[in-house]
C-alpha cells in the first residue's frame, strides 16, 4: 500500500478551499496551516504563464524528517504516511529544519504538526478533507499499488512532475502538468 496524491495544476484555480477544509477538519490553530497554495507566474507581460499548486507534505519515501528525529516521534504509518506522535515529540525542530518543502510547523502546544493525509478519514473509507472539498475536483487521492485508484488512473493518463526530486526525498505528491 502506498498512499499518494495528484494535484491537477491545470484545473486548480487557487481558491484555498483545501486550506480552509484542512484547518477545519484537523482543528489547525488560527494562523497556521498544513496545506497551502503556491502561484508561480513565469514570463514577461504579456506572455505570462501561471501555475497554481495546492501543496502539502509530500509524504516522502525517503523522508529526511523521519531520519533526523531523535525520539522516533516522526514515523511512517501504513501506506507510507509520515506522522508525528504528539506525545513522543520533544519539539526540537530538527524535522522542520530538515524538510526541503517546509511542510512542518511548530504547533503552539509544543509538538510539531503536519499534513496526515487525513489518516483518520482514510481509515473510515473516506478521502482526505482537501480532496473531498475541492470544487474543481483537481485533487486525486488513493493507493498507488492499486491500479484502479483515482491517483493511479490519473497518473497513467497525464504528464506529471514532483517537487525537487533532486533532493532525493522521493516525494509522493504528484503535480499534473
Amino acid at each position: 500500500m502506498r498512499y499518494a496524491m495528484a494535484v491537477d495544476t491545470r484545473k486548480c484555480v487557487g481558491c484555498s478551499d483545501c486550506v480552509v477544509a484542512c484547518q477545519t477538519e484537523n482543528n489547525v490553530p488560527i494562523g497556521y496551516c498544513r496545506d497551502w497554495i503556491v502561484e508561480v507566474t513565469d514570463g514577461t507581460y504579456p506572455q505570462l504563464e501561471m501555475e497554481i499548486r495546492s501543496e502539502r507534505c509530500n509524504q516522502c519515501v525517503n523522508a529526511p524528517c523521519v531520519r533526523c528525529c531523535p525520539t522516533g516521534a516522526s514515523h511512517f504509518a501504513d501506506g507510507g504516511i509520515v506522522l508525528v506522535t504528539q506525545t513522543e515529540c520533544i519539539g526540537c525542530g530538527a524535522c522542520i529544519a530538515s524538510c526541503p518543502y517546509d511542510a512542518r510547523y511548530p504547533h503552539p502546544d509544543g509538538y510539531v504538526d503536519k499534513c496526515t493525509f487525513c489518516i483518520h478519514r482514510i481509515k473510515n473509507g473516506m478521502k482526505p478533507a482537501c480532496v473531498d472539498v475541492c470544487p474543481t475536483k483537481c485533487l486525486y487521492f488513493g493507493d498507488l499499488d492499486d491500479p484502479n485508484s483515482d491517483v493511479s488512473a490519473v497518473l497513467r493518463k497525464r504528464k506529471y512532475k514532483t517537487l525537487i526530486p533532486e533532493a532525493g526525498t522521493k516525494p509522493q505528491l504528484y503535480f499534473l502538468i
Partner: protein
Amino acid sequence: MNEEVIVSGRMNQMVDPHLHIWHWQISLYLFLGGMAAGILAIAAVYYIRGRENDYKTAVRLTPFLTPFLLVIGLLALFIDLRHKLFFWQLYTNIKLQSPMSWGAWTLMVITPISFIWCALHIRDIFPAWDWKFKWLWALDGFFNKYKKALAWVMLIYAIILGIYTGILLSAFNARPLWNTSILGPLFLASGLSAGAAATLLLSKNEAERKQFARIDLVMIGIELFLIIHMFMGFLASTQVQIEAANLFLGGQYTMSFWIFVVALGLVIPAILEIMELGRYHIPVLVPAVLVLFGSLMLRFIIVYAGQVSRWLY
C-alpha cells in the same frame, strides 16, 4: 523573469519567520559544546602523553570550565525545546540516523566525565579538599587508578562531541548551506581553537602559553583552509549551493562573516599570536578573547544563514 507568489495563511519563511526554527540557543550550545570538546580533548591528549606536568593548566585547571560550559549548553538546548516536559524521550530512544540522538547520548557520557575529571583534580586547586564520605574517597581512588582509560574515553567522546556539533547541521540536505561535510571538521577545529584559547587565557606559565599559542595557530590555519575548501565546494556545486555560498560572497551575511569570523576571529588573532611567538609582547587577553568571539560568531552566522538558504522550486 520568474515571479513566485504565495497565497494562503501558511507558515512560510517568505511570509513569516516561523520556519526560522533554531535561534540563539542552538548557536550558543554549538559554541559551548565545541569549546568544552576542545578543552577536554587537549587535556586528555596531554595526560595520555604524560605531559601533565608541562601543561598543568591545560590538564588540570582549564577542564574546570567544562562542567559549566556543558551545563549551560544543555540548559540552552532545553530552552530550545518546545515540548519541554517530553525531553526525557531522548534517552529512551537510540536513533543511529539522527545526529541529535547521537548528540544527546554523547552529552550523557561526556558531561559526567567532565565532572569526574574535575573531581580528580580538585585537590590541585584546593589542597585541603576532603570528600567527607568514605564512598566518595573510594570513587576518587577508583577513577585515579583507571585515569588513563578515562582519558581515552574522554578523548574519543570529546572528538565525537566536537564533530557532531557540525554534523548536526550538515545532515540537513534541505538547507544547502549546512549540507557540506566540511562543517564537522570545521566545528571541531574551531572548538579545539577555542579550547586552546581558554588555556591561553588561564595559564600563568610562559612555556605553556607559547605552546598553546602554537596550537591555536595551527587550528586557525586548519580553519582557514577548511573555509576556503567549503566555498570552493559550494561554488563548484549546484545552483542551490552556489546561492548558499553567495550569502557570504555579496549576500546578506557577507560583512558579518568576513569581519567577525574571518578577520576578527581568525586572521587578527593569528597575526597577534605570530608576533607573540616572535619578539613582541602581546597582552594574551586580546588574541584569546578574539578567538572565542570568532568561534561564537561562526556558530551564530552558520546557524542563521543556513536557515535562509533553501532549495529553489
